[in-house]
């Protein structure tokens, strides 16, 4: 499998009528996760989140591809 960069957010069982809604649901949850955290705490929360998601994805070739894209752009 290669890295999926097409829109891919969904909530199981939820019907979306507007294409922008699932991505916006995710983004709101992401920003909410950081509510009331200091910058340092946010950095730690982000690191923990990446580790959890990386393990969930599991496929290290996909993760390497994502890491490459992430690093290239900064």
């Amino acid at each position, binding site marked *: 499998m290669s890295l*999926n*960069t*097409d*829109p*891919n957010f969904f909530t199981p069982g939820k*019907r979306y*009528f*507007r*294409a*922008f809604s699932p*991505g*916006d649901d*995710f*983004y*709101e949850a*992401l*920003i909410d996760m*950081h509510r009331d*955290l200091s*910058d340092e705490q*946010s*950095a730690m929360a*982000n690191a923990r989140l990446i580790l959890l998601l990386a393990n969930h994805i599991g496929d290290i070739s996909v993760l390497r591809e994502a890491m490459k*894209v992430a690093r290239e*752009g*900064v």
Partner: protein
Amino acid sequence: MLSTYQYPKFEYRRPPEIAEGREGGGGRYPVVVVGAGPVGLTAAIDLAIHGVPVVLLDNDDTVSIGSRGVCYAKRALEIMDRLGCAEEMVAKGVSWNVGRTFFREQEVFNFNLCPEPDHHRPGMINLQQYYLEEYLVRRAQSLPEIDLRWKNNVIAVSDQGDRVALRVETADGAYSIETDWLVVADGARSPIRHMMGLDIEGKIFMDRFLIADVVMKADYPTERWFWFDPPFHPNQSVLLHRQADNVWRIDFQLGWNVDPEEEKQPEKVIPRIKAMLGWHANEEREFELEWVSVYTFQCRRMHEFRHGRLLFTGDAAHQVSPFGARGANSGIQDTDNLVWKLKLVLDGTAPARLLDTYSEERVAAADENLMNSTRSTDFITPKSATSRTFRNAVLGLAKDYPFARALVNSGRLSVPSVLVESPLNTPDTEVFAGNMVPGAPMDDAPVDSTRGEKWLLQAAGNRFLLLYCMPDAGDVDAATADACTALAAGAIPVETLVVAERGTAPAGLGTLIDVKGRVRERYDLKPGTCYLIRPDQHVAARWRSLDAAKVRAALARATCNA
């Protein structure tokens, strides 16, 4: 400052209550609407079209000062079509579908609001609010049911249980009137909401924005351009779009710690605009300022939009951030939802409880608008360093990666709510593809009708409708035609239109020829499929075959008569 627009001054006339010496009371009306802005005018026109006499009170005598609400979305235009006001709007307004988003120096992506062909109205038009109001006033003045009273200021309101009593002040003194129902459309500060001691809950956003309307001859395409962190206005956002008469709206985010009075001064505004135009066109461009305003905004709504005999609409009931054009557009949808219900209640063919569903349905819509506009605001103006980092990461990825483009939020432009949770819907019992679920606002499609209508939405609205699919309209059998004729003769009539590829329906039934097959496609029609449509063009129920008893049951449910 330059002016491309001559503000009309509408004539105050001595109200009949004063002229006839009935200042103390005696005037009793079925409906009074307070506020002759876009929402109040729309409500009054809709009521008049339904044959309801209406008194429309306004404390001023002209239209909106300044361009204010400039984006009118497809759904609002479809409602204006139903009210006979859209042609002028579309002719004068600037139609646009394409939006471009820039991050710093680069365009990161663009979108098309209406990529689907075969819709009558465009995704959005830009039109100064004063033009919209002028057209609506003209329409209202042409309708004998509307008694439009300028410079009539409501100073007291009380709900008497079986009626509402109003005290109204004019240059000739004050007078009292009574009404069965009061439609409150008196704007964000809503004096009536205050007089009634009703709360509106939400939050104010700690940010300020500068609006400048600029007159210039420019050959920019008719598109919406949105910049995040542009070189000419670092760390903030800027929006540019075009209105009628070569007027361009430019919106600069300023941040919280600025002096709004100072920012409004031309010597402060003009350099900002020069920097923007200079960066963009790389040349000196002549322009003149027409209108400048600095605003903040709130995101809030009333807990309920119906309070006894008072029905709150538009900004009086709910306010959103301007990102997404969800203010006036949602107010117009409020009245679209309200008026047919009020008409049935006034006629005595539906219980007053139907008006509670106005509140339920439009509160749900307001929450959707609040959610979307708050999300846009949070994306455009990040509230923390981490939020800004994520926002910039999304913008950085957007140029190359489609998933990130979908996350860029410069305003989710007004689209109507699908009222999936409405108690007026009859849930599906059969399988349908597509989005025309019970509660959905109808998708448009080209048709050819016996009455000359060219669009499905022109053929719908203002009454309950049954769309019945039959490939050859002439194949509708006698028993079905009789059942449809009986539906049309009910206390709440349901008119049947046969959607067909060819042929003519039996007498008493209308025919819509689905000239491009789009109705079939968008509504997943098969021979025998029927849709019950509300007067506000929302789907109430649908089936794979026509059963008059089921239609009656769904009609009863959609009108709180079940």
